[in-house]
């Protein structure tokens, strides 16, 4: 470590402390105040970043978790400080502490919205859509003609803005969660279908020949060889579908919903400029999305333990 590198954190830390004192002591109308506030934030950022660089280069095994955590905390801290220093109105950007208070005080509402949107809308739609996609994939697997026709169409549909179908589903199935589940079914169907069809093709000739020499029937080959071999592909599709399911359920509520649900709450609070509540809903949505993905990834780990990508 050179002398300059040793000096840097000292300078940054001193700058942070000095500007912090100056901001608190100076008159509110002092002309240098805005500059000092910016310097205060920059030196905070610089100190934290320097710490992260040091942590990352130290090469400790725990750094894999510590460094991103420190980065995330720094962002939250900067956000909090910036809102406080510049007096940003909570109508534009509420501070993290305000959002946290909002989450803690409105837990029952958040829970009701979560159940309506995630458990009823997203999860049921996800189960139906993925189940249907796997069934269709197994059915069309026997016909190369259908595969050649359905796969390009499926790939095409998977790239389309399918959320646009939400207003139609709301008209057909009403305002409650059934219409949200219907949107989710359509959104998750094609990515899972395309992946599952690719997965069913993943066995090679040698393996299928071996099953043939055992005198295995179509169903035995399917159950004992081809379905297990398709699992890595299937889970790839299932993981993509987790995010799509939550997006579909929330966006469908923008087009009409009962007076409960995450999408409803977001649109309703926008009208009242209740930004902390919106951020609270977004936090819940982010946690639910990550947890959903995490659970599917965990199941994948248990099911496809034999696959090279799972060995460590």
């Amino acid at each position: 470590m050179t002398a300059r590198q040793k000096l840097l954190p000292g300078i940054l830390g001193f700058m942070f402390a000095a500007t912090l004192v100056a901001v608190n002591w100076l008159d509110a109308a002092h002309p240098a105040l805005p500059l000092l506030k910016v310097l205060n934030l920059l030196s905070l950022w610089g100190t934290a970043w320097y710490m992260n660089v040091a942590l990352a280069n130290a090469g400790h095994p725990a750094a894999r978790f510590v460094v991103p955590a420190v980065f995330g905390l720094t962002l939250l801290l900067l956000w909090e400080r910036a809102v406080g220093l510049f007096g940003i109105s909570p109508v534009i950007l509420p501070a993290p502490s305000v959002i946290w208070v909002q989450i803690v005080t409105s837990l029952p509402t958040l829970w009701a919205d979560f159940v309506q949107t995630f458990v009823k809308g997203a999860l049921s739609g996800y189960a139906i859509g993925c189940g249907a996609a796997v069934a269709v994939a197994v059915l069309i697997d026997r016909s190369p003609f259908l595969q050649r026709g359905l796969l390009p169409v499926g790939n095409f549909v998977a790239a389309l803005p399918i959320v646009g179908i939400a207003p139609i589903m709301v008209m057909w199935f009403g305002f409650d969660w059934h219409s949200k589940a219907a949107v989710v079914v359509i959104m998750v169907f094609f990515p899972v279908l395309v992946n599952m069809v690719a997965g069913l093709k993943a066995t090679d000739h040698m393996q299928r020949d071996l099953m043939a020499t055992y005198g295995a029937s179509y169903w035995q080959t399917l159950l004992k060889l081809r379905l297990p071999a398709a699992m890595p592909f299937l889970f790839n599709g299932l993981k993509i579908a987790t995010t799509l399911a939550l997006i579909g359920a929330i966006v469908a509520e923008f087009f009409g919903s009962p007076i409960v649900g995450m999408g409803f709450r977001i649109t309703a609070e926008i009208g009242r400029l209740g930004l902390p509540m919106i951020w609270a809903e977004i936090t819940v949505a982010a946690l639910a999305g990550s947890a959903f993905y995490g659970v599917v990834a965990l199941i994948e780990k248990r099911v496809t333990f034999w696959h090279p990508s799972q060995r460590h």
Partner: protein
Amino acid sequence: MRNLLPILTVLLVITGLWYLAAMRMNATWVYDQAARAGQVVTLADVLPQTLNQERPVLPAPHQVAKGLWEGVAGQKVTSKRSLVYHGWITLSATLLGFAFGSAAGILLAVGIVYNRAMDMSVMPWAIASQTIPILAIAPMIIVVLNSMGVTGLVPKAIISAYLSFFPVVVGMVKGLRSPDAMQLDLLRTYSASGLATFGKLRLPSSMPYLFASLKVGVAASLVGTIVGELPTGAVAGLGSRLLSGSYYGQTVQIWAALFAAALLAASLVGIIGMIERMTLKRMGLLR
């Protein structure tokens, strides 16, 4: 084109099923009308009426095609009822956002590949952000920016930039890391500078990954713009056509806007696919 026949068959079957569904779903209304007028209708009377309703539950394909054609060619391009007008508003916000989002994504990916601290700090968040329904914050961004006096194209473009940003970061990092140790060692034996390694090895070998993530990104951008058009109260854009159609029960308008959005998405992905094929062909990666 040996796939042409199967694809056409599948499309034909879908259209057929669609007609059947339209007859079935719209028949209720015809029967109700007949019952109210005290008439008895036979199936032969009902079927033609199910396909030409003003506000059908499910418009038949030819009605959607007619709505789409009238929206595209039947109006002046500047008319508020023209799909070209609304499509252009959506497209311009999408392209602006996509350009900024993917450029920022590529820059961040370069930073991540060359800076260890950045890699360890940002990359886990970039990956985690893919599991988060980011689209949910779209209405909030629009309204907050509106209250700050920023309206029109820019708020939608910000959402679409945000949505295309993360797929590009993740794909580009993967691409820039795709050269294996042998290739990197070879360049080291040539004593190539960092810039030369980047320009001659890392950047070229990242191209297939870049284009794959650009295709995902542009589709996400378009969805972001459409959703961004919802909370502004249906002013302009394909998203507002969807919303106003659902307010007033104009099903044909919804379906026409939906197909216009689908055509837009397909052509955007198609254009990127074309650039991809041309680039990869010139690089000799595509046979």
